[in-house]
């Protein structure tokens, strides 16, 4: 009990105003907390969706499902506008090993390797001569059983 002789009514008024202001402040804090939680949830959702999109991209690459529609369309446009080289004109640009690339072009008439003349062929040994040669000169037999 307060020792103040007067002001009891005023103290009741203070109590009532305090109750209302406190309720308002607490509700504000709760609403603010809920709003923050909602924003955090949306942030997490956005991160998760971004991760999922990246994961889909990665999976598509690994599974070999091919490029995206935009990539395929761009490749088709490039192929359509690429200058054609007539097949009669072989590409003589050497590759890394110095071999003309035209030899590896599919469908291109490659220059045929010169066939060895029969006169350049070494003389064939007769079976009798092979049998007469030393054993270490012969091809060893395939041995099995190992």
């Amino acid at each position, binding site marked *: 009990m307060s020792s103040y002789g007067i002001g009891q009514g005023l103290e009741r008024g203070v109590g009532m105003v*305090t109750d209302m202001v406190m309720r308002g402040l607490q509700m504000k*804090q709760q609403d603010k907390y809920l*709003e923050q939680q909602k924003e955090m949830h949306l942030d997490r959702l956005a991160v998760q969706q971004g991760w999922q999109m990246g994961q889909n991209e990665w999976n598509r690459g690994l599974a070999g499902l091919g490029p995206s529609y935009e990539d395929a369309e761009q490749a088709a446009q490039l192929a359509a506008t690429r200058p054609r080289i007539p097949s009669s004109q072989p590409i003589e640009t050497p590759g890394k090993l110095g071999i003309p690339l035209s030899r590896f072009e599919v469908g291109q008439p490659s220059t045929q390797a010169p066939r060895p003349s029969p006169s350049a062929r070494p003389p064939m040994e007769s079976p009798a001569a092979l049998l007469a040669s030393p054993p270490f000169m012969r091809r060893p037999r395939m041995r099995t059983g190992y």
Partner: protein
Amino acid sequence: MAGTTSIEHYLATHTQLPLEEVAEIYHAGAPWPILYNDLERMAHDDAQATGIPVETAAKALDQLCDIEATQIKVLIQEAEPAVACACFDVPFFDIPEVQALRAHPIIRDWLYYSERVALRVGESDVSIVFAIYLCILQYAWDHPEWARGV
């Protein structure tokens, strides 16, 4: 927190605000005007001015306090639903239904002092300073010896 007193702990407990924030606001506004001290002095002044006994002047002043408390009660009942539905980003004293309560002479004086303290603290919300002021008044009513020493 070092250096805090029981009044600051009381305020932090009743307002559910951080102790550091409460202590900063409390020290920024100290000494807080305690109306109950003024009532006793006013009763003595009225008795001296009119020649009536102090008890009679105090009783009249007490009845005036009861009338004002009834007025505040009516204003609170009118503002309560709007306060309950207000969004958290709307300041308490910006709610239209609170304007009548804000215009009450006693509330207006307390709010004016709270606004000055809020300005002194900086970015502090006026409604928070006001809530702390109300809690100080309640503490003063429960601890008159503390209030008279402020």
